[in-house]
């Protein structure tokens, strides 16, 4: 069983992010973290690979910045790391990304399962997973809150999925792409030994041409980035003689605002 996961670095969620005078997105010198949604997919990859005595591999596609996320993944316990350098390619387009990701999976050759996080915390597109599955022609199991059973010999998997309307139990054939939700597990913290090992690791880099894929032209283009209009909020702390008076005043305001 070979389980592969993808991850990348994203700015810390507490960072102030803004559009600078050049029209670029900036976050000062705040450090990046491993995409927080991926802590769950990394953990699940380790668990699934270990359960079946198999291999685990983590791949980042993009610039050197993502080495940090790869090292974090390694420190957590993923065995193999790999970066696909996409110099000159427009990585903001998910069709370009999925062509490279599918190329890397084909080049690895023996992959049974791909586990990803639900979304990237920065761009938040929640679309790369599906397009990768589509390019590979694999089954997509999305919004997974539990992997109930994996049968490597029979090549089957059974999962619990989260819907807006409740939960669903679904079974499918492997290979499959699985995207996981927060709550599927308790991600482990990298331990000291893991961190030391990862710090020393050499990260192999494949270029797009190593993958032997025709990368498509980017279908979409980001035209401009904007700072959202400042929210003009004046807070009114509701005053009143007692709680009855305060809540009555609040309800009054909410009727005036037409939200009740």
């Amino acid at each position, binding site marked *: 069983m070979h389980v592969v996961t993808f991850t990348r670095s994203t700015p810390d969620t507490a960072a102030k*992010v803004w559009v600078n005078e050049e029209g670029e997105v900036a976050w000062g010198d705040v450090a990046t973290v491993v995409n927080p949604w991926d802590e769950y997919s990394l953990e699940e990859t380790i668990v699934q690979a270990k359960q079946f005595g198999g291999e685990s591999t983590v791949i980042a596609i993009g610039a050197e910045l993502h080495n940090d996320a790869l090292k974090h993944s390694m420190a957590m316990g993923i065995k193999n790391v790999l970066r696909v350098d996409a110099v000159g390619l427009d990585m903001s387009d998910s069709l370009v990304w999925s062509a490279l990701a599918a190329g890397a999976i084909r080049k690895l050759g023996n992959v049974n399962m791909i586990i990803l996080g639900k979304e990237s915390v920065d761009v938040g597109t929640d679309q790369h997973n599906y*397009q990768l599955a*589509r390019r590979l022609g694999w089954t997509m199991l*999305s919004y997974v809150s539990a992997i109930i059973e994996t049968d490597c010999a029979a090549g089957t998997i059974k999962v619990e999925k989260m819907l807006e*309307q409740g939960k669903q*139990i679904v079974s499918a054939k492997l290979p499959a792409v699985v995207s996981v939700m927060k709550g599927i597990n308790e991600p482990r913290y990298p331990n000291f030994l893991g961190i030391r090992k990862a710090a020393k690791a050499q990260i192999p880099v494949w270029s797009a041409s190593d993958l032997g894929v025709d990368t*498509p*032209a980017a279908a979409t283009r980001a035209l*401009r980035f904007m700072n959202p209009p400042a929210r003009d909020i004046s807070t009114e702390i509701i005053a009143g003689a007692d709680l009855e008076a305060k809540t009555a005043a609040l309800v009054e305001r909410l009727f005036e605002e037409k939200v009740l």
Partner: protein
Amino acid sequence: MSVFVWIETFDGAAIPSSWEALGAAQSIAEALNTETVAIVFGENCATIAAEAGRFGAARALICDAESLSEYRLESYAALLSNLAAEHKPVAVLSVATNRGRELLASAAADCESGLISDVINLRIEEGAIIGTRPAYAGKVLMDMTSKTATTFVTVRGRAFPAPRADDSLSPPIESVEPREIPPEFQTKIEELVAELGSVNLADAAIIVSGGRGMANNPISAPDGISGEEASIWKAKDGFANTLRPLAEILGAALGASRAAVDAGYIPYEHQVGQTGKVVTPDLYIACGISGAIQHQAGMRGSKIIVAINKDAAAPIFKLARYGIVGDLYEVVPVLTETLRKKLR
């Protein structure tokens, strides 16, 4: 030329936010001088197509088959990709629900077409489709366009008004054949545990949320429960007997902070924020929530925010339009009673 809108269904009915996607589609169809086509898959789905017509779709393409009675990505995506390839619409829209996102992303990949997800504004500039979407948890907005003949777009729930239904409309409905999916590429639905009747956070006009402060419930935990267990018991009791009655009287959905979810007070489905759900209700009432940046990421877009917190210095008050400084276990029951009298 046309603009497709996939009408998402659940349990044999259209989900209401589908009409918002139809409204968004109509606005660009008008600017492009073309028409909207409702796409409906399912079993006995002609009635939903007719409903789409009343909401303003100029035509409907339906695929009515027993095998489509339950949504499955493989069969739905094969159909949608095929229809898009055949009819070459300028755009394919849906609402950015879980299913809308995966279906449109899959069909976009099949069609090698651009996808703009989770847009809050959609318009035509010099003939091109431009979508505005939030990024970096709403700290930044971006305008995106696509260079392909068809552009796939998912629209954020509650960002576009639904059109008004007109009972006199009954546009033409055309049926298409289902596509056969090889069994090894087909998932099997074993079981569905639907929570019917509960208000969906993404669709909710009003949300009442609780945070870590829910643990400070003055009620005593039953004998034999102590420490962390007692906190959890008290917080659960607070969600059930203090927050839920307020939510019920308002017809609101129940939300929570991550701290409340991680401590085991309430299931993850209720989490609002950067690693939970992004919500945009008209009214968001935060009880015992400090207002951390990652929580704000999920609820900043609410029209009116009300904070109930005992700490006057809590950051949530900087975001709130109205605040009551006080113990939520004193304030919320009185607020519920005030509303009960007023709304009766």
